[in-house]
């Protein structure tokens, strides 16, 4: 084979590889629901990131001359019972809520993933790890949140701990299931026969082959985490006033539901939109990444 032909072959291979990498995003974009959900979530995330620059008012500025005003041109989402601009507070609240969800998913996903994979790799740890996970699973997240809040005082930290504890056992189970499937494959044995060390086997052979399953599970889980976080906020275990947090805002608006329904409903709608978009995107990721669903 001549050098030119070889070079041509390499160029072709590089193209194929690039196409394969573009595949996931491309396939996501082709799915209209997923594309819309992704777009909505992106807008929300950017709004939350750049909250100080795009919000028209100060989230803590109370204007007692304009309390409980319904939405108008000046205050798009109206004002709450102390005259604070609800649009501004929803954007800041989204910031806190998303942060809670992300931290819960990332930290909980990491701990759960490590536990699950170790349980699958070291079979003698399996019993211990999974019983620990069962114990964690037995407590509802709300209850853990209440307990943590009782010990350390209510606040975002208590919610984050509760969310992490709520995420770990589910992720550990999913990760363990995926990892046990991979462990049964002959390439694990091949790696061992070649002499690959335990650490490398765990990372390059085992973890990389079940990470997409875990990722899909976490994207689906993200919506639920946000919901639990908001529920804790609603119960008063989460962010404390005057901090803006969607669940807590909905809880405060509840008192004025008949006089000014927008105070409670608008933050609730924001939660609804975020959770729905996250779930739809998670679904789409599952379809795209799950090798069993690929043709």
């Amino acid at each position, binding site marked *: 084979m001549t050098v030119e032909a070889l070079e041509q072959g390499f160029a072709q291979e590089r193209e194929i590889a690039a196409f394969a990498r573009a595949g996931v995003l491309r396939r996501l974009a082709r799915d209209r629901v997923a594309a819309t959900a992704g777009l909505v979530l992106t807008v929300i995330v950017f709004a939350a990131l750049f909250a100080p620059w795009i919000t028209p008012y100060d989230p803590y500025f109370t204007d007692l001359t304009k309390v409980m005003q319904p939405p108008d041109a000046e205050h798009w989402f109206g004002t709450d019972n102390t005259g604070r601009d609800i649009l501004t507070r929803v954007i800041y609240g989204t910031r806190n809520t998303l942060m809670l969800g992300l931290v819960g998913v990332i930290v909980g996903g990491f701990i759960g993933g490590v536990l699950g994979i170790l349980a699958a790799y070291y079979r003698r740890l399996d019993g211990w790890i999974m019983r620990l996970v069962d114990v964690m699973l037995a407590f509802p997240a709300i209850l853990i949140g209440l307990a943590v809040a009782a010990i350390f005082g209510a606040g975002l930290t208590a919610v984050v701990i509760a969310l992490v504890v709520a995420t770990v056992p589910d992720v550990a189970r999913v990760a363990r299931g995926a990892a046990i499937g991979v462990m049964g494959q*002959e390439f694990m044995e*091949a790696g061992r*026969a*070649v*002499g690959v060390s335990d650490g490398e086997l765990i990372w390059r*052979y085992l973890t990389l082959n079940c990470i997409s399953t875990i990722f899909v599970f976490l994207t689906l889980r993200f919506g639920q985490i946000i919901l639990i976080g908001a529920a804790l906020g609603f119960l008063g275990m989460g962010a404390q006033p005057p901090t803006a947090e969607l669940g807590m805002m909905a809880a405060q608006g509840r008192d004025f539901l008949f006089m000014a329904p927008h105070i409670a409903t608008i933050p609730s709608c924001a939660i609804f939109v975020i959770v729905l978009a996250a779930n739809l995107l998670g679904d789409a990721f599952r379809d795209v990444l799950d090798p069993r669903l690929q043709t």
Partner: protein
Amino acid sequence: MSDAPVLQVDRLVKHFAVTRGLIRRKVIGLVRAVEDVSFEIARGETLALVGESGCGKSTTGRLILRLMDPTSGSVRFKGQEIANLDKDSLRRMRRHMQIIFQDPYASLNPRMTVGEILAEPLRVHEIGDDASREARGRELLEIVGLLPEHARRYPHQFSGGQRQRIGIARALAANPDLIVCDEPVSALDVSIQAQIVNLLQNLQQRFGLSYLFIAHDLAVVKHISDRVAVMYLGKLVEIADKKTLYDRPLHPYTQALLAAIPKPDPALRTKRVMLQGDVPSPFRPPTGCRFHTRCPHAQARCSAEEPTLREAAPGHRVACHFFETLPIPTIIARAGLANGKFAERLAAFEAAKAARVPG
């Protein structure tokens, strides 16, 4: 062939404990997967290990490579005992003994390119630098009949036969002396089987490899092996060189296995000895001779006393009390190298090769 065997397996035993209980695990029984298996393999030799599914042949292969720890017994590789090696020495040992797996779709890590897969054994054992490993990868691909530029691709971009070639290339990477082939062709199409078997034979001649060839397809075994060991329920029942075993099998189980090979001649069909019943569970193996529940010649002594491997002729050992007096069945594998479709393919393949490369 030098005299010192590459591999000596002596009284190898593997029991799997069946446990019950959540906290205090109690052993409620043992699955006797491999029981008292001994054989040796010389340099450049192929020993085939045949038997039904679940008879412990794959377990034996994994015990030899210490992918599993034996319950007792010894495995000596070039005179060195490996059954009790510590973790580090074992890892160093691994470059000399390799394995080819049955399922080419499961035996390659889908997250690594073919180049990375082939460089892995060299990287692990710190042989050469990145450039030389890459060069070695390309060389290996050519040796097994693929193109050097395939190194950049991922396993899923190949067919089953090509993947099996990659698996073979990986096994060759660090220049091993012994390769355990765990049913390397039984997941492949018949046409591809012939190619892979031929490749394995060529590599053996070229690099002086020893094979432990685990298989259940006796036609393939007949083509590739020098000696054949037959296993039943974890025990060796007969071991002999290929010609002896196929021409004059002495153990009733071997006779039944050979009779089960499909024959192209319809006149021979009626004389088949069919085995009755299923393989008993290795959890509760039968007393005495493990084969007595299905043996057409079983007598009282067979269920009471366990037969040992006895020498029938030099190099031909049989574990049966009565092999001297058993009737010789009207056998069996007819003339020709192998039977059936596989043989036809093999012949066609050889002819094509001869036509392409004169001499």
